[in-house]
């Protein structure tokens, strides 16, 4: 076996080791270790990505000495490796963008605990991406939930603790439904490895027995993961959690944690239940309806909001709606569009969060729009970055958001029954996006005399470099969409 194929297992365990060691380090040491580990995980994922793209195959990695169906397994192809690489890159950039805020907002004796949480979050995301075992997925969903709570409440601000509380209650409800789903699935199939469950489910569907429990299981698992990834009617926890936590946490929660659950859902659709069976169940229409409702309602809530961080958070609800609408189309093209939107939204949303903090910093830490007037002149880098993010969200060509909207529209064209609602809602949602994002951009570029001091780019080099990296990533996703969609299609073909 090639040595490269060990890297997924190594990267999961490496992140866990880093978390364990960080718990006894001081804040600075933990920070350095974390940066090193995230970069190393990124490099390892890159190596796996290059290898899997070159061979175009899917690999099974047995965790232990017992081959399937006895032991745990990892399974990875091009799609998984690429996702892991992308997650590592976004995590590194989000942390660098909020580094100064982390130092300011977190008590000195608890800074190392923040990096413990970040490392465990990374390990759980990697495990969710790579695992081929349903129960392993559940265990790492738990780790993911608890560490996300830690990331929200680390600032010990009253609002954050309340938000973490809400997040925990909703998220545990989701975990519970997911666990019940796994239990019923085990009862029906007698396996926990995804590929074996899939074989049994195909037999069950062919025989026509257990059709009611199967439908309920699919519904439970989908609803559980939808609650955790903040699909529209279950998004009540989201604005507080993203709006008040420290900026790196908000960026990671919106672009990594919810995306990890969505990736797990894709895995369940393809690998556990099987895409044709999933597409034939009624659950997919429910997803479609919730998705388009989320696209509208999220944007409407964002328009009403007078707090820039909460506005960006509500925009997340709308964007998650896009992703679920893509699932709801029930076609390969819709799935490709959704996966592209996962990447594009993660890159854009973390950029928006990080640059919004740059803007509020030069407005006396006020987050309402009146105080933000003219903020782009006071912090030019953050202003440019926010504008790029906003344009990308709205869907202007050359930025990543345009490509995902184009892919969604193309996918909708093939699906005759759902074409009209999908296209109409896509158009309406884009217009709503323009209303609240352009309002913000115009507001921050309105020249006005205020007493707030301006910040030069030289004073905070790390922040500016991070923003440049984010912008480059965004433009790269927008300009080089062809190879990326090809990679997604290649990955999806060997995914199941």
């Amino acid at each position: 076996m090639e040595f490269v194929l060990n890297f997924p297992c190594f990267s999961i365990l490496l992140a866990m080791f880093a978390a364990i060691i960080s718990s006894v380090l001081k804040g600075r040491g933990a920070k350095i270790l974390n940066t090193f580990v995230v970069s190393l995980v990124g490099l390892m994922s890159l190596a796996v990505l290059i290898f899997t793209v070159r061979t175009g195959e899917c690999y099974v990695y047995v965790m232990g000495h017992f081959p399937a169906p006895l032991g745990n397994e990892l399974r990875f192809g091009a799609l998984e490796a690429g996702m892991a690489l992308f997650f590592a890159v976004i995590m590194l950039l989000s942390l660098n963008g909020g580094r100064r805020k982390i130092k300011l907002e977190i008590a000195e004796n608890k800074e190392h605990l923040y990096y413990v949480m970040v490392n465990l979050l990374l390990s759980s995301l990697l495990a969710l991406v790579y695992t081929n075992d349903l129960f392993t997925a559940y265990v790492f969903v738990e780790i993911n939930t608890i560490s996300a709570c830690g990331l929200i409440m680390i600032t010990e601000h009253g609002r954050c603790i309340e938000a973490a509380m809400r997040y925990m209650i909703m998220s545990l409800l989701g975990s519970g439904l997911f666990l019940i789903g796994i239990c019923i699935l085990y009862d029906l199939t007698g396996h926990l490895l995804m590929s074996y469950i899939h074989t049994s489910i195909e037999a069950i569907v062919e025989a026509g027995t257990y059709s009611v429990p199967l439908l309920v299981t699919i519904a439970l698992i989908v609803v559980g993961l939808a609650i955790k990834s903040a699909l529209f009617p279950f998004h009540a926890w989201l604005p507080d959690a993203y709006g008040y936590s420290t900026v790196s946490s908000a960026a990671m929660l919106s672009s990594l944690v919810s995306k990890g659950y969505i990736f797990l859902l894709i895995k369940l659709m393809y690998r556990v239940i099987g895409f044709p069976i999933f597409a034939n169940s009624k659950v997919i229409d429910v997803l479609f309806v919730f998705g388009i409702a989320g696209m509208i309602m999220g944007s409407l809530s964002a328009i009403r909001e007078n707090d820039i961080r909460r506005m960006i958070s509500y925009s997340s609800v709308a964007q998650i709606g896009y992703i679920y609408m893509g699932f709801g189309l029930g076609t390969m093209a819709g799935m490709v569009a959704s996966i592209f939107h996962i990447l594009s939204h993660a890159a854009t949303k973390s950029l928006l969060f990080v640059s919004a903090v740059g803007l509020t910093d030069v407005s006396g830490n006020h987050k309402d729009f009146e105080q933000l007037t003219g903020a782009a002149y006071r912090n030019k880098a953050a202003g440019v970055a926010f504008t790029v993010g906003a344009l990308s969200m709205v869907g202007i060509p050359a930025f990543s958001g345009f490509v995902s909207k184009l892919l969604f529209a193309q996918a909708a064209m093939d699906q005759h029954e759902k074409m009209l609602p999908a296209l109409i809602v896509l158009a309406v949602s884009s217009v709503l996006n323009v209303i609240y994002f352009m309002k913000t951009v115009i507001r921050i570029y309105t020249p006005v005399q205020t007493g707030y001091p301006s910040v030069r780019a030289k004073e905070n080099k790390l922040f500016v470099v991070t923003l440049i990296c984010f912008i480059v990533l965004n433009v790269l996703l927008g300009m080089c969409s062809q190879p990326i969609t090809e990679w997604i299609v290649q990955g999806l073909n060997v995914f199941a």
Partner: protein
Amino acid sequence: MSRRREQSEYEKTFAFRFFRWLSGEKDAYIGNMEMRPQKEYEEKEETVAERMREKGKFSAEVYDKKYNRELRFFDRLYRAFSIIFCIAIVAVLIFTVSFLPEVGNEANPDNNIVSETYISRGIYDTGTVNIVTGMILAYRAFDTFGETNVLFVATCCVMILLMVDEDKIRENKESNDRGFEPKNDVILQKVAHVLAPVIFLFGIYIILNGHLSPGGGFSGGAMIGAGLTLYVAAFGFEKTERFFNERVYRIVKVTALMLYGCIVLYYFYTGANGLANLIPLGEAGRILSGGITLPINIFVGSEVACTIYAFYALFRRGGL
């Protein structure tokens, strides 16, 4: 022939003390147990008045359901919907369960090759007499490593919430009630004196025999943690810190988790690459057998014990 004792001599006997206690003349606690009353919390009149005013304002404007009909309506709607929703979910789940295969049927889907192999080949594959331990620590080693990390992340989260700065504890010693707990409780101390060693020994026994008899790292560790908690409750933190302080806690926890991780990493690497496992399985039934399960049980046990002690210490005084 019995001799009448002097009063002073009689007062030294056990019978005298017993009858005095029985008649309620002397309280055994007085003089033996330190009970300090909690300092009364006094508030300035202005703050009280302000708070009352604010409270009145809020309840008048926001919470007064008498005049806020929308709120009252919403409240009722919310309650009705939550009840309907719960009943609906319960009904759906019960309806689903009625379609599931009957428990204990031989033809059930979960009576397949997997469980059969665990039972028939478990002792040869993992070297453990206790099938459950072999299953969770060898067959599904990755899951259990994840579970142990769940405990670790839970402790870290509690630390984020409850850990207090050492200097702050000293500063606000008067205002928090952590220093005003009953100390030197004779009954508790005597009982702990007898029970704590037994609990520790039993916990260690459960951990070391995890691969032979029911039990293992999780249950044995919980017992040791309970023993530590009992000891702290009886004798206070100062005495406990002579053998278990923050330094020891950190060393034990990090070493246990790191060694566990290393074993697991070695096991996965050799397994996936088709290399031989150099950790001997030993003769099944012996104490030194079971391959990786014995050391893993020990590490899991120390991690669980540390976690339980840390929860108690953090909740009681905001530090380890």
